[in-house]
């Protein structure tokens, strides 16, 4: 059973959105279920601060155990910060997906974020996985 945090928002593609201390700024990463499915993460290709993406747009790729997967931004937004630690330590996404393993921080609309799945809906989406 994967870990799901009650106060985050989620997508069917297994990304999460987490409020930060700054109003309108959210951390985005992949869920515990997603990191478990991928296996050991060896490389992340992430955007630069200042880049903007549409909702569900591809904002990067993650390489794990010889498979490359796309990363989708859950809501439209502008990247304001990229997690600098992941360049050297991509495995932090495996060990702490909801904490130190965040990938980008984005400026986004609170209404867009509120429209994503809550923890109960994401739990149902996983169907006990």
């Amino acid at each position, binding site marked *: 059973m994967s870990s799901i945090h009650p106060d985050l928002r989620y997508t069917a593609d297994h990304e999460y959105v987490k409020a930060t201390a700054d109003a309108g700024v959210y951390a985005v990463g992949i869920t515990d279920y997603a990191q478990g499915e991928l296996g050991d993460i060896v490389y992340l290709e992430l955007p630069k601060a200042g880049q903007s993406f549409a909702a569900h747009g591809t904002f990067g790729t993650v*390489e794990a155990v010889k*498979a490359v997967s796309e990363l989708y931004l859950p809501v439209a937004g502008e990247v304001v910060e990229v997690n600098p630690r992941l360049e050297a330590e991509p495995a932090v996404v495996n060990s702490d997906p909801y904490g130190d393993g965040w990938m980008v921080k984005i400026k986004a609309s609170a209404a867009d974020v509120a429209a994503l799945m809550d923890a109960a809906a994401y739990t149902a989406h996983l169907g006990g996985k």
Partner: protein
Amino acid sequence: MNTLRWRLLDSGADGGAEQMAVDAGLLDRARATGEAVLRVYAWARPTLSFGRHETARGRFSPAHLAAAGVDAVRRPTGGRVLLHDHEVTYSVTAPALNDEPLRESYRAINQLLLDALRRLGVAAEEAAPAPTPRPGSAACFAEPNAGELVVGGRKLVGSAQVRDRDALLQHGSILLADDQPRITHLADAPITPAVPAATLADALGAAPSYERVRDALAAALAARYEVLPALDTADVLAFAAPHRTRYSSDEWTWRR
């Protein structure tokens, strides 16, 4: 993958950029048609392929490779550097099925490959789990990863996958003979030398023909899936066309 309809495609030998463009095009075709394709191909010239995120600059140089008569491409898939020469290459493209976990598709394709190898008379098996190295630290056949196909603990088939929410591509090399030690001589910087790979030539006493390996793959496919009439390479050129620019460009190949 059991519910998919499959097609076989024999593309034969061609340049590396074209082979990568066709694999990428087949990923689009899987999305567009809902069909899976098992493709078999070969390399017109010895070609080094870099993993999607792997560092090539500083480790290899276009001039050195050109002098050695070796082409270079960068794959859409992950993993590490590989020299394609005496091998039969396979690719599987398939639409994503109800969020099927990655390792299940990897396993289904491995079962297909293991069946084909058994038909050739080779008793291969899946490698046991081991820690995964970072891309850029070694060559692809240097050590087997969990789930890869080995004979006597040595890697026979190296595979890599890319997927998005709609489809997946997995391709890999079934070694006829071991060209991988040449990578050390093609590199400008020291790289971890490849441990001897397993080859079909070693396992069978002589390398089987491309056609024999292709036919074993086709028989393994037909034994487990519904297979529609084979595709012609001409049928997939329209899907490959939008990808040619990327895979033939130095900007992509030498981007890192």
